[in-house]
């Protein structure tokens, strides 16, 4: 016999664990958005590529997602450099503030990139979902049962976010990136090369995104498909706005909030409407945040 309280507790635990992964997946978007002020509409497609990376490393070499994640992160660095010089450099070069015109052009261009990647992926991978057979077991704690895989993934996610925070606040290059994100003209005056800094931030952003895609496969064990990015990208947009673009801990707070909403709301309503309602609430939470705390809920 399972009582309602332990069901909610279990959902809450899942929510927190999944929230950590949401956080790292949104973290890459947050980094690029916060530093270059460009929103990468193709973000979900890079998550999808990261997940497929983990799938292929598993199928070819038998790697589990934790092993694939750093390889994905390296691929993401390269992809990020290509992305910066292919899409953002033309628009950001020589600008001291990011205008609405630039925002519009990059929105539209990355939107085209999303269309391109998702449809190329559909014709190469086919829409049939694939999965990674990896099940490291379950830990029991009182009435809770927690999958080991999701615990490990949550720990890595938090570590990645903490590492970015340390990098941005404690290193020279990190300070340069923060200076660039605050005031491009002033950063140039003190000798910071804007192109280098923006390119590094973009590469790190996509690196975190693809790493997140690999970690996410633990939560979608048999659901890796070319369209998965279209589910997770909007969640990431909401997370970043919730936390505030450019605030590293913001991704974690936003991710936890969304993870908890998506996992706990179904416990309180009829099972047939639970999942849909939870997603609807998770998406619409964006509107009051934008109205009442447009800088994000994290100080």
């Amino acid at each position, binding site marked *: 016999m399972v009582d309602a309280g332990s069901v909610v507790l279990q959902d809450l635990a899942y929510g927190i664990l999944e929230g950590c992964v949401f956080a790292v997946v949104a973290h890459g978007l947050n980094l690029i958005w916060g530093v270059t002020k460009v*929103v990468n509409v193709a973000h979900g497609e890079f998550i999808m590529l990261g997940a497929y990376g983990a799938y292929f490393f598993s199928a070819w070499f038998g790697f589990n997602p934790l092993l694939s994640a750093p390889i994905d992160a390296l691929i993401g660095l390269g992809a990020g450099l290509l992305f910066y010089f292919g899409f953002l450099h033309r628009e950001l070069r020589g600008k001291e503030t990011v205008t609405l015109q630039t925002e519009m052009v990059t929105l539209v261009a990355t*939107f085209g990139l999303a269309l*391109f990647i998702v449809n190329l992926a559909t014709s190469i991978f086919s829409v049939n979902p694939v999965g990674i057979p990896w099940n490291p077991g379950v830990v029991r704690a009182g009435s809770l049962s927690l999958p080991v895989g999701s615990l490990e993934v949550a720990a890595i996610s938090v570590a990645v976010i903490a590492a970015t925070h340390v990098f941005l606040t404690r290193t020279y290059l990190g300070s340069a990136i923060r200076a660039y994100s605050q005031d491009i003209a002033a950063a140039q005056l003190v000798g910071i090369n804007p192109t280098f800094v923006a390119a590094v931030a973009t590469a790190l952003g996509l690196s975190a995104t693809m790493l997140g895609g690999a970690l996410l496969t633990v939560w979608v064990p048999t659901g890796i498909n070319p369209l998965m990015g*279209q589910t997770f990208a909007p969640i990431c*947009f909401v997370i970043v706005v919730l936390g505030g673009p450019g605030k590293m801990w913001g991704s974690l707070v936003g991710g936890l909030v969304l993870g908890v909403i998506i996992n706990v709301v179904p416990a309180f309503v009829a099972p047939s409407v639970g999942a849909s309602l939870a997603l*609807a609430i998770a998406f*619409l939470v964006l509107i009051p945040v934008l109205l009442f705390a447009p800088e994000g809920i994290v100080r």
Partner: protein
Amino acid sequence: MRLPRFSPTFYGLGLVLVVLAILAPALPILSLTFLTSLLIYVALAYSINLITGLTGYVSFGHVVFMGTGGYALGYGVSALQLSPLAGVALGGAVGLVLALGIGIVTLRFRGVYFAISSLVTALAALQIVLVAPALNDGQGIVLSVGFQARSVFYSIWLIVAAEVVVTYFATHGRLGYGIRAIKSDEDAARALGIDATRLKLYVFMLSGLFAGASGALFAWFTSGVFPYVMFDLTFSLFMLAMIIVGGMGTNVGPFLGAVIVYVSYWYALTVPSLLGLAFAAIGVIVILVALLIPEGIVGTMRRHFPGLRGILE
């Protein structure tokens, strides 16, 4: 008879539409169907052009108006026993009211924030429709109105004609200057005494009206509404791609873009080896247009050939 002073493109578009209307009864049913679906996309492109093209507010979730319009017709025809034509009117009305509701809140947000809030609104709407008991719990509604090719064609024709006229008046005269000022610099426009909030809301409502009516028409055309079809973000993407390629905020751009994108998409569908790559190719076109000629075909022509400006306006 002296013609009123409209621009040549306006007359050109009118001529194309009149020719289509005259030819329609003589066309074989297959061509008429093709023409109808093309015109549905033209109508959708003009509707998103009103908000995204004219004011620069990128509406990623424009499909929300199309979807609710379609569902309005589905509900009206199946539950309220309306005629399909009344259903289209209902779809337009529902689209307008929804745009009013959404616009009051989200039009305060600028740039990417508006784009993202429009996207999540559409996604949330899909999730709500999936579980709404009045709308058949997301199972969709099959309409038994039969296949009325000609009525459908002339209804969508009427919508497109109305959109061309509305777009013309929204790009010219006092109203057009106000809207253009908002697109260039909203704060400066406000400083000049333009009531930006109200103007944006008006064009957004018109945009919702036309997208709702087109969505209803799409439901009539396909004899049913299904949540994953009516709220498919692909429609949003199509609409955006069309006005990006044709030229945002122009009078003839949406028509041109819709024809280019839809015809190439339709062509790719008929070639088996290109299947699936049709959208990828559209993606490449959108990237190239955005990075190289962000003003689209019509906007770029206007910039490089000032002599054509009088014609293209």
